[in-house]
Structures are given as C-alpha cells and as structure tokens.
C-alpha cells in the first residue's frame, strides 16, 4: 500500500488542478503575456504534482491505488470513485507532461482570444486526466464527453480555413458513437444497480448479472464502437485528418498524443476488463480491422502532400498497432500497446510541434521511450487484466 497521507487525495488534486487554473484564469490576469505565464505555471504545477504518482506508486501491488470512493449522487447511485493502476499511471503523466509543452508551443502562435485558448487547454487537461482516473462509469462518461467540448472549441475557434466543418465533424462523429456506450452503461446500471467498474466487473465475472449472456455482445459492441471511433480504427477514421489539419498545433498535439489513447485505453479497461469472453470472440475481426488500418493508414500517409494529414494517417496506422496489441490478448501485446502508445505520442508530438530538429527529436524520443518502456515494463506487468 502507498502509505503516505496524500494518497487518497492526490488523484483529485492532479485531476482538478488545471481546472482550478482555468477558473482563476477567467478572473485574474488580463494581459496576454500574463495569461501565458499563468497557464504555463499551472500546467507545470500539475506536472510536478503528477510526478507524485509514479514516485509513490507501489509496484509490487496489483490492482488500484490512490483510491478514493465517495458518494456523489445517491439516486441514481453515482460515486466519485477514482483510482489508478499501472496502465493509467503513465497515461496521466503523459498528459501532464504534454500540456506544458502545448502551452509553450502556443506561446507565439496564438494571438487572438489568448485567454480563452488557455482556459480551454486547461479544461481539456482536467477532462483527459479524469478519463484515465475515474472508475465510476458515469464519472468516466462525464469526463469522456467533457473532452469533446474544449477540443471542438479549440478546433472550431482557433483552427484554420475549414475549422467549423472539422469541429462539427469531430464533435458529432465521436459523440454519436459515444451514445452507444452510454446505452451500454445504462443497461449495466439497470441490471447491477451500480456504476462502479469494480462492482460491475466482479458481478459479471460471478455470473450474477441477469440476462447478461444475451446482452453481452451488444454491450461489448456499444463500448467498442465509442472507442473504435476515438482510436480511430479503420474505417471510422475520417474525422481525424480533418481535425488534425484544422486544429491549432497544441490541439493536434493533445489530439495525437492523448485523445486517441483514450480509445485504446477504453478498449483495454472496459472491453477487456468487463467482457473478456466477448473480447476473445470478437478478436478476429477486430484484429483484421487493425491490420487493414495499419497498412491502409501507412499507404495513404505515404502520398499526403499535407504534413498534418500525413501525421493523421500515420496515427491511424500506429493506433492500428496499439489495437492489434490489445486484441492479440497476450501480455506482450498489452505491453506493446502501452509502450507504443507512449512513444507514438511523444514521437508524433515532436513531429507536429516541429520545434525540435528532426534528428534530436528522434533521438530524444527514442531515449525517452526506451526509458519509459523500462519503467512501464516494471510497473504494468502486474496490472494487466488476467486473460
């Protein structure tokens, strides 16, 4: 057990620190320069705060840590339940690491509505961290959809020529897919009386959920569709090139770096965590789609004249690898998912942001991702769902 006294509250602090920053930003600084510095300070503080997580993370211990579980709403039975295991640990740190970089990238490139831009960025960070830390399905869904709003606004307001089209497409596409997940979540609540991930998982595993065998495939697909669009898995990927091209650079960074990983994280946590049997049955066609996406994305990326579209299609290709890793249903595959998610995130971001020279970028990425994979290898080994 992590024994430090901060332990139950640290996730809350990390998750909501950027939001507090955003709220303060609404009132406090007026000049653009102060806004930038303020945003940088807050995102850096969040990053430093988040470093508490890997440092105090208790590696030999399987299961969730830093857990906090409080009643939020009594009817329906919704909890404020947050916790973290080896899988979400690095995604959270990745998010907090990238946000200060996004602030720096946007330092000079954003001139209009500077304050709004950084407020959105910080809100975005809170929503992203929330996705990776919440264990209550309702809370998860709340954060999941909450990422849409700042992102759509970042694209729609601060984007380029076809920004409105891209923003609406991004918003509608992922939102419609998420509705199926909502339906699945509601079904689960109706039959288990709980939104709690752990409770539901255990009930399913015990076979204590009425009518579950009949509904399982649909539930699996409901979750899967939401995640597949977010990943994006071929053929649900066409929102991504538009969003990437139109988004401001910081938006692209968070998009490629973190937002897409929400999809694969969801697959791992919920599709595999809740429905291991269905995951096994559905693996063949999912793996097929992933394989198609890998090659298809690479081929299309190869002929793109637009750099950001190239990055977008290469994301389709790389995330195909991640999906493949998850649905290969072996421990090594999951490792592949995690390490390639991280290194891809870093790699792409250095491409997108272009403020590293290509060579040093590549070097740094390879070193960083190697180091990460060493750490990750240790911490996640015991956290993977048993298959």
């Amino acid at each position, binding site marked *: 057990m992590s024994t430090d006294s901060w332990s139950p509250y640290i996730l809350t602090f990390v998750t909501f620190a950027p939001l507090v920053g955003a709220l303060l930003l609404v009132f406090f600084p007026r000049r653009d320069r102060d806004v930038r510095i303020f945003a940088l300070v807050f995102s850096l503080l969040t990053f430093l705060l988040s470093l508490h997580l890997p440092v105090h993370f208790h590696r030999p211990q399987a299961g969730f840590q830093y857990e906090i579980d409080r009643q939020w709403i009594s009817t329906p039975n919704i909890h404020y339940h947050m916790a973290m295991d080896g899988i979400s640990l690095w995604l959270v740190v990745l998010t907090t690491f990238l946000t200060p970089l996004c602030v720096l990238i946007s330092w000079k490139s954003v001139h209009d509505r500077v304050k709004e831009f950084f407020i959105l960025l910080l809100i975005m960070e809170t929503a992203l961290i929330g996705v990776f830390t919440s264990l209550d399905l309702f809370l998860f869904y709340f954060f999941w959809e909450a990422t849409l709003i700042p992102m759509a606004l970042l694209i729609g307001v601060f984007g380029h020529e076809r920004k409105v089209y891209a923003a609406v*497409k991004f918003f*509608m*596409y992922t939102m419609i897919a998420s509705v199926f997940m909502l339906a699945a979540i509601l079904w689960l609540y109706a039959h288990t009386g709980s939104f709690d991930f752990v409770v539901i998982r255990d009930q399913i595993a015990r076979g204590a959920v009425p009518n579950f065998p009949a509904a399982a495939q649909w539930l699996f697909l409901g979750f899967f569709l939401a995640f597949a669009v977010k990943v994006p898995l071929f*053929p649900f*990927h*066409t*929102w991504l090139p538009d969003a990437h091209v139109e988004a401001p650079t910081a938006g692209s960074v968070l998009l490629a770096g973190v937002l897409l990983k929400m999809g694969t994280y969801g697959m791992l946590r919920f599709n595999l965590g809740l429905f291991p049997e269905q995951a096994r049955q559905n693996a063949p066609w999912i793996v097929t789609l992933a394989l198609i996406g890998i090659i*298809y994305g690479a*081929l*299309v990326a*190869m*002929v*793109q004249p637009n750099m950001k579209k190239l990055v977008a299609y290469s994301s389709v290709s790389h995330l195909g690898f991640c999906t493949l890793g998850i649905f290969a249903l*072996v*421990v*090594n595959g999951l*490792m592949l998912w995690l390490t390639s998610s991280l290194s891809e995130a870093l790699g792409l971001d250095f491409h997108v942001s272009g403020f590293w020279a290509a*060579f*040093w970028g*590549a*070097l740094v990425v390879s070193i960083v991702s*190697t180091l990460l*994979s*060493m750490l990750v*290898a*240790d911490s996640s*080994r015991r956290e993977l769902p048993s298959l």
Partner: protein
Amino acid sequence: MTSNLNLWLIPSLPLAGAAINGFFGKKSSRTAVTTVGLVFPGAAFAWALVVALRFSSLDLPYQEYVAHWIRSGSFSADFALYLDQLSLVMLLVVTGVGFLIHIYSVGYMWDDPSYYRFFAYLNLFMFFMLTLILANNYLLMFIGWEGVGLASYLLIGFWFAKDSAASAGKKAFIVNRIGDFGFLIGLFLLIQHFGSLNFTQVFAQVQPMTAETGSAGLLTAIGILLMVGACGKSAQIPLYVWLPDAMEGPTPVSALIHAATMVTAGVYMVSRSHVIFDRAPMALMVVAVIGTLTALFAATIGIAQTDIKKVLAYSTVSQLGYMFMACGVGAFSAGIFHLMTHAFFKGLLFLAAGSVIHAVGGEQDMRKMGGLRSYIPWTFLTMGIATLAIAGIPPFAGFWSKDEILWQAYSSDHGSWVFWLIGVITAFLTSFYMFRLLFMTFFGDYRESQVDAHGHAHATHGHDERGHGEPHESPMIMLVPLMILAVLSIVGGLVGIGNRFENFLAPVFGSGQVAETAGEVASRGTELLLMGISVTVAILGFLLAYILYISKPYLPQKIADALNGFYTAVLNKYYVDELYAKLFVKPLVDGSTSILWQGVDRKVIDDTVNNTADAARHVSDEVRHMQSGNLRSYAGWIAAGSAVVIAYMIWMGVR
C-alpha cells in the same frame, strides 16, 4: 570471471561527442567542434586498443551487462554487450578506420557551413555502429542496425537543399526498410521458436538441431529472412539500388559508412548467425548465389561509369558480393577477412577520390580529369596502392583475402567451380575498372577544359563557379589518414598468411572449415594453380585498361559504338531503377493516391459519413414542418395519432 572491461565506454564515447556537438556545436568555434568530434571517437579507438591488449586474458565470449531493458511476459532483452574474436575484429576496424576518416573529415569539411552538424552525425553513426557490433542480442543489434540507417540517411541527405541528395537519402532509408522487414520477420520467428533473441541462448538451442539438408525448414526460413535484411543493409541484389545514389553524401561519409563499415553490417550479421546458417544449407546457397551474382553484376556496371564515386560505389557492391559469396560457401572467416582488408583499401579509395575531387574543385566526372598525378602526387601514390590492393596484385591486402575467398568458393563443401569461375571473371573486371579509373584520373593530360570537345561528354556548363585554379594537393590532415590506410592496404593482408586469421576466428566459427588437414597437402597444388589464375586475370585487367585508356585512347568509344545496345544498357545500369519505379513505386503511389485516398477514403468512407449527416439533416428539415405553429394542423396530427393508437389497440384486442 575476468575483470570488467567497461566495454560500454566504446559506444558511449561517440554518443557523448554527438550530443555535445549536436546541442552546442552551432555556437562553438570550429576548433572546439573539431576537438570534440575527434577526441571522443579517438578515445573509443584507444579503449578498443586497450580491450584488444587485454583480449588474450579474457574468458570468451565476454559479456557485459549494462542496463535493464525489456522484460515482458517470458521475453527479455537487456542492454548487454558481447565480445568475441569476431566482434573484436569489427571493433578494431570500425573504431580504427572510423577514427582516421574523422581526422580526414576535418580537412574535407572545414569550409562547410554545417561543420558541427557533420561531426554530430558522424559520431552518432559511430555510436550506433558500435552498438550493432557489440550487442549481445538481436534486438539491441537491430537498434544499432536501424540507428546506422538513420545516420546514413542523415548524412546522405547532408546537403539536403539539393534535391538529389534529399531523395537519395530517402531512397536509402526506404530500400533499407524493405530489407529490415525480412530481418524483423526472421527475428519474430526466432522469438516464436526459441523464446529469446539473446545470441548465447538462441545458438545454444540451435546447436543440437540437425542440418536441414534436403528439405527447407525453420532454420532455412530464418536464414533467408536474415539474408533479406543483409541484402538491404549491404546493398545486394535486389536491394543494392540505394548505394550508388548514396554517393550524394559527402565523400568521407561514402568512405566510412558506404564502404568501410555500415554496408558490411550485413556480412557481420550473417557471420554472427553462422550457427543458424551452418544448419541450413539451402539458406547458405541463397547467400552464395546472391553474393556471386551481385559481385559480377555490379562489376559490369562499374566498367561504364564516368563518375569517380559511382565507379567506387559499384565496386563496393561488387566486393560485398565477394564477402557474401564467402559466407555462402561456409567460409565466414574468409568473408570477415575480406571485410577487413576491404575496409582498408576501399576506405582509402574513397578518401583518395575525395582528395581528387577536392583538388579539382568539386568535379566528379573522370572525363574532366586526367594527368593529375603530377599535381597531386601523394593522392596518386596512395590511390595507386589501393588500386593494386583491390585488383588483387600480391602482396597487397586485397590479394590475400580475395584469393582466400576464391579458393574457398572452389574447394569448400558448399562451394562449386561455378562460384569460383564467376569470382575470377569478376576479379578481372575489378582490375580493369579500377585501373581504368586510375588511368582516366591520373594519366594523360588534364582535360578540364577540353571536355566538350569529346562527343560523349554531358552537356555540362563549362566550369562551376568555385573558381579553382590548378589542381592542388590536399592538406596534411587529409593526407595522413591516406598514408596510414595505404600502409594498412599493403600489409593488412599479411595476417592471413598461414591461416592465422582463420585460426584466430576459429573459436567463433568452429573448426569445420579450417579442418583441411588431410586434403590440405594434396590440394596445395590446386590452390597454387588457382592463385596463379587469379593473379593472371588481375594483370590481364590491368593490361586491357592500359591498352584502352593509355596506348589507344580512341578504342573505348569504338567499342562502345560497336556494342551499342548493350553499352547503353550498362551505362544506364541495366535500367533497374526504371524497372523498380514502374513495377513498385508507381503502382504503390498511384494506387494509394487514387484508389485508397481519393477512392476509398474520400469517396466511400467520408462520403458515407457526410451523406448520413446530410440525410439526417434533411429528414429533420422535413419533420420540422410538422411543428408549424398552426393549431388546426396540430389537432389533425393528434387525431391521426389517436386513430393509429386506437386501431392498434383494436387489432391487438381482436387477436
């Protein structure tokens, strides 16, 4: 356990140099960049020498654990180093020749505005190359393998503002990736069947397996896949096309990466995997055939090239073919021997060619040279030595190693007189095109201004504007490496006398091929006869070049005219690039653009998405009209709705 060698220092030192120059080089002075750029690889060389001195007291193979890397499921791979006789030879060649070329680069690149960048890349290359040869598992080796590919890409495209350089870099990278694909699948097979990529663990499991004679099995598959990787990195048929284009890089790069070290990585990798190949005769056969064909094929292209570096590039491809021929007949130590001597004389040839290019102000077309021996005598002398060495004239280095290969090709269990014959023909061609190069460059009159008088010259635009006067000798800092390499090209082959080199490597490759005990004496006569033949053809090549380019210089044009079609084909490198472009590049690019991107992505998927959205909007638009604000129409809808419900209830009730 023997004492700790701190082997990790050897790759780390150049990495430190690369980091320092890369991060701070831009703002530091040339002297500082030079110091850093030379001291770190120099220290690596020094440490390699220390290792060599302490080598005899080691328990071999010596392994050194550096850091924990991947532990996933049952698979693990660490940053760990491996040293045996084979890696020691590679280590000395890479650090030694590498260091000399670093010194040379100081003179060659001094005026370049991106001087620091050059040294950062070059040091980075050293780091990856040393990782490659010191790795104790295939995965770490693959990191080095990819890393040298990256460094090669960066250095070929060093003058990236030039279109041809940028695309040559891309071509090299992509073609190499095709080879890597085979390499990777070979590695996957290794993991699947042996659960490890660690050399010791894999080979320990392969050792007891029986040879796959007659039928192809797992080891054959792995061997061939590894060879695919080697074909990419070491520029063998069919993946050799990137190497000639790679000459767009600065000449020291051509010498270091594309002649002496990186391109030999494939030979090293195949030799390292000899345990696998030994048990897969069919894979060995593939290696031998590819090597032999490449040797001949590239040599024929080499005889018609007019760019001094292109001649050397095709020559490199051809010589690498010899090395694979050796590996393919099971004579790995002969291959490594040739790898070493080739590093000396080919490195020297490239450096000397760089000195020539430097002397004539950037010109690379041999038709515009000639008579340079009086202007740049030192370059001439050293290049002459290297030419004698590569042509196989005794007692120069190339003679010993090439002769060893030809002998093994003839006499080894896996050999055949066919390999030998093609090898000899190639030796003749090699001697011919190398002396042709020497004569065109250094003999006759300096033709700089007369080139347009010759009908067959390109329509070049007079002189470039670099405004050089007389050809001038290079500075000392460039000449000293030339001289050292020249000495090595003379004496480097002597280590092979009396099978000493083979015996040194015998613990690695096993005693199989060295055991020529009984047959040894009987075949001594044959060996001498074959040696005589290969020396004869080398001299014949020299004579032919002499006749064609010195005594009767009008002949080549006549021969070219007589062999019109064939000559054009050779001149155009058999149109292989064009063929690849038609067969692979164009279909892939066009297919991806018009079918996948514009077709599937835009027309099918995206239009479906957008049409669904439009349809939803249209339906909503229509439905909106129901809500007109007109009370009577609402009443009508209510009545209609009630009617439907009542009808439904009645229907249900009736049933």
